[in-house]
C-alpha cells in the first residue's frame, strides 16, 4: 500500500482509542502519562491541539520531550531533553499529592460502573486465579489528578459488576461517596475502550455510554458489559480522526506500528 493510501485507511480500533484519548488532553495540561496507548495519545495531542501540554512520568520526569517512542515509563529517552528530573518520592509528593497534575491516564484489568479499578488479582486475594502487577502509581494518580481517563480493551471479564479487588478508587460507591472519603482530585471523567467512549453521570457518578466507534452497535457494547449499562440521552458515533491526525500517528509517532497493530 502506498504511503498516501495508508494514511487514508480508516482507523483501526486501537487507533480510535488513541485519537479519543488525545482529545482528552487540553493545551497547558500537566499530564501524568502511563506507557503504551496513553503515551501515544499525549504525543499526538502535543502535535495537534495541545502543544503546551507538559508530560509527567512517575519515574520522576517533568516536561519530557522524547526523541523516540519510549518503551517503558523509565526509558532513558524521557530524560534527555526533559525540563526536570526529580526523585520519585518528590514526583508523588509534589506533582500528585501537591495537586499539580491536571490529567492522569490509567489502565486496568477490571473496572466497575463507578470507575473503580482492579490491577491486583483476579479471583481470591490469597489464592488468585491471576496475579496482576498490583498498585504501582495508580491509586495516587486516581486520588489526586484533577481528571482521570481510563483506557482499556473491553469485555465482560473486565467490565464487571463487582471487582475482585479495589486497587484504585474512582467514584467509590457513586454519588458523593468519593468526596466523603476525602479524595483531593476530581475523579474519572472518561473511559475509552476499543468499542466506545463513556462518561459519568454528574449526580449518581455511574458510567454512561456516550459514543460508539464506527461499525459498533450499542447492543454489541451491552454484551461486553457485566452490569445493566446506562447510556447518555443521545449516543453518537465517536469522531474519526482527521487525515492530519491519522498521518501524524502513523508516520511520526508509531511508524513501526508497535502499538498500533495491523492497519
Amino acid at each position, binding site marked *: 500500500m502506498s504511503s498516501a493510501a495508508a494514511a487514508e485507511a480508516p482507523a483501526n480500533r486501537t487507533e480510535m482509542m488513541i485519537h479519543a484519548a488525545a482529545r482528552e488532553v487540553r493545551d497547558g495540561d500537566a499530564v501524568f502519562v502511563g*506507557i*503504551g496507548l496513553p503515551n501515544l495519545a499525549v504525543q499526538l495531542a502535543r502535535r495537534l491541539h495541545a502543544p503546551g501540554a507538559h508530560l509527567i512520568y*512517575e*519515574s*520522576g*520526569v517533568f516536561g519530557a520531550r522524547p526523541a523516540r517512542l519510549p*518503551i*517503558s*515509563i*523509565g*526509558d*532513558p529517552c524521557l*530524560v*534527555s*531533553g526533559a525540563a526536570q*528530573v*526529580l*526523585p*520519585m*518520592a518528590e514526583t*508523588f509528593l509534589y506533582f*500528585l*499529592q501537591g495537586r499539580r497534575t491536571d490529567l492522569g491516564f490509567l489502565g486496568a484489568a477490571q473496572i466497575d460502573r463507578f470507575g473503580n479499578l482492579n490491577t*491486583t488479582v483476579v479471583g481470591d*486475594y490469597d*489464592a*488468585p486465579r491471576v*496475579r496482576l*502487577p*498490583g*498498585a*504501582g*502509581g*495508580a*491509586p*495516587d494518580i486516581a*486520588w*489526586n489528578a484533577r481528571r482521570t481517563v481510563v483506557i482499556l480493551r473491553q469485555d465482560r471479564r473486565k467490565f464487571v459488576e463487582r471487582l475482585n*479487588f*479495589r*486497587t*484504585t*478508587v474512582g467514584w*467509590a460507591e457513586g454519588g458523593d*461517596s*468519593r468526596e466523603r*472519603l*476525602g*479524595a*483531593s482530585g476530581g475523579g474519572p471523567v472518561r473511559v475509552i475502550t476499543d468499542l466506545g467512549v463513556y462518561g459519568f453521570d454528574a449526580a449518581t457518578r455511574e458510567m454512561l455510554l456516550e459514543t460508539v466507534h464506527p461499525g459498533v452497535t450499542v447492543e454489541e457494547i451491552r454484551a461486553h458489559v457485566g452490569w445493566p449499562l446506562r447510556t447518555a440521552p443521545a449516543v453518537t458515533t465517536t469522531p474519526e480522526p482527521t487525515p492530519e491526525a491519522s498521518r501524524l500517528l502513523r508516520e511520526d509517532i508509531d511508524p513501526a506500528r508497535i502499538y498500533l497493530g495491523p492497519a
Partner: protein
Amino acid sequence: MTMAAAIRRFVRDGHTVALEGFTHLIPFAAGHEIIRQGRRDLTLVRLTPDLLMDQMVAAGTARKLLFGWLGNPGVGSLHAIRRAVERGVPAPLEIEEYSHFGLLCRYKAAASGLPFFPLRGYRGTDLPRVNSRLRSVTCPFTGEQLDAVADLHPDVAIVNAQRADHEGNTQIWGLLGAQREVAFAARRVIVVVEEIVPGEVVRADPNRTQIPGIIVDAVVEEPWSAHPSFAQGYYDRDNAAYLAWDRVTRDQGRCERHLDAWIHGLSDRTAYCARLPEGTRERLTPGPRPAGPVDYGDYR
C-alpha cells in the same frame, strides 16, 4: 572493594535487603553475586520487582518480598515469583504489597528519623485489608484522617550509580528512583558504579551528588553492572533480554539452567560481559548529548 567482598561482608542470611533503581540502574551484578554466594531467607524490598527479583526468587534466596508493582514491564508476568507465591517452588514466598508512593514513604520516614510517614491515597481501596502495615492517623491540626506507613530501615541497601569517588560520594544523573531515600534509610549501603573518579571530579559538580560518602559502606566499581537495565549516558536498556526472560521464567528448570549459565557458571561481572553476544555493547551505547557546564564560582 570487589563485589564478592562487599556482598560477603555486608549481606547475611535473613537480612532485609533493598535493591532499588527504577528501570534505570538496577543492581543486577550485585543481585547475581547474592545468588552466587547462596544467601537464604532474605526479605527483598524493591518498588518494582522485575527480572532481577524473579531471578533471586528462582534461586531460592528470598523468604519475603515487599513491592509496589510486580511485573516484566511491557512484557508480562514474573512466573518464578508467581510459582513461589502460589506453589512454594522452589521455596515459599510471602508478599507484602504497597503502592509505589506507600513504599517510598516508608523509606522517607526511615531516612528522616520518623516512626511513620503520613500520606493520602489508600482510603476506599482494598490494600489496607491485605496489608496490616497500612494504617491511618488523625491530623492533630485539622482532624483529617490520613493514611500512614511505618519507617523501613533495610539492613542493606544496594544502589547503582554512574560514578563515585573513593570516599563514596555518589553521583547519579537521569532517573533518580528511590536511590537517595533508600540509602539514607538503610543501616548499610553498598554503591555500585560504572566508574570511580577522583574526588575533584565530584567536587566540581556537588549538585549532582545524590548519596554522601558518610553513609556509604562499600564502593564497588563494575562497568555494565546494571545490564540488562541501563545507565543513562553509558548504555541503553537491553530490551531483547527482557523479552527473552519471558520464555525462561515460565519454567523452573529453564530458570535454573539460566542461573547456571549466567551466574553460577561465571566468576564475576567481567565474565558476564565477556559472555554477552558480540556487538551487544556497541548496540547499546548511545551517542553523546552532554549537559552544558555551569559555573559554581570561585569564592576565596
